[in-house]
């Protein structure tokens, strides 16, 4: 019996099993992500909010718009764009809206968790959370 050969084979089998486990975990994570449709939800949310901001820019009169949200994300609005991500994620989904240099947008990093987002457009646009 060649014990050294057996050891080499054992190592290769172990390596193969570990490889399988890693790929299986990655695969399950991927399927889970697809099941929750995270990317699609994020993509939809950021575009929907971006279009609202674009539409508010066109409003000739003061307007208050409430956006009821039921998913948990972190929302960041600055002078150029709206970004949405999970608090644990680094990558942001962004929408670059068309700015009006006469209108300022006042908002910061907002946690969105079963809350209503209120867009208050008067001379400027104020974004805040309600609830």
């Amino acid at each position, binding site marked *: 019996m060649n014990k050294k050969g057996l050891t080499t084979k054992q190592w290769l089998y172990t390596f193969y099993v570990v490889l399988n486990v890693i790929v299986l975990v990655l695969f399950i994570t991927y399927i889970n992500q697809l099941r929750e449709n995270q990317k699609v939800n994020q993509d939809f949310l950021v575009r929907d909010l971006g279009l609202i901001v674009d539409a508010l820019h066109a409003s000739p009169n003061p307007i208050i718009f409430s956006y009821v949200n039921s998913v948990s994300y972190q929302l960041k609005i600055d002078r150029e764009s709206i970004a949405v991500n999970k608090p644990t994620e680094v990558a942001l989904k962004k929408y670059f809206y*068309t700015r*009006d240099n006469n209108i300022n947008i006042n908002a910061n990093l907002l946690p969105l968790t079963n809350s209503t987002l209120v867009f208050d457009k008067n001379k400027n646009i104020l974004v805040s959370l309600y609830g």
Partner: protein
Amino acid sequence: MAEAKELTEAWIIWIPTIIAFFVVISLIVIIISLAVQKDINIEKIQQPILRQRFLYSENCLAYKQDRVYPGIIDLAKFNEKRLQDCFNPNDKIGAQLVLKTDDYIKTANINPILADKFNFCFDEERFSCSNYTYYVLINNNSIIEPGLLDVALIKLK
């Protein structure tokens, strides 16, 4: 020497197995990705929203006296500097506005680098374009006259 040979033989047997394993996994991922791929296309709603800003916003072209009159254009506001201010897109969007009456035609380009590229609109994979003509009233020094406002938008995909 024999040990090294045995190790090499074992690897030679395993390498195709590992390659086949990755190929199968990649194929499964690709097939699933293709099946669940969802494309959210907002061009058809985004461009009308952006276009209407020119008519509705007092910062753009809408005439204002006590209140804003959407659809009535203040001729004094029709200049590129003002339009660039009220419609300041990222580098991917350009616009061309043409105001026509019986007496004159005025043109304004926003983001000229893209506004010059309307000839490339046939390339639907790279550009998304739209063009809409609005029947408007024009306030020209308190004289109201009818006119047409062509708003053409081009967006780099």
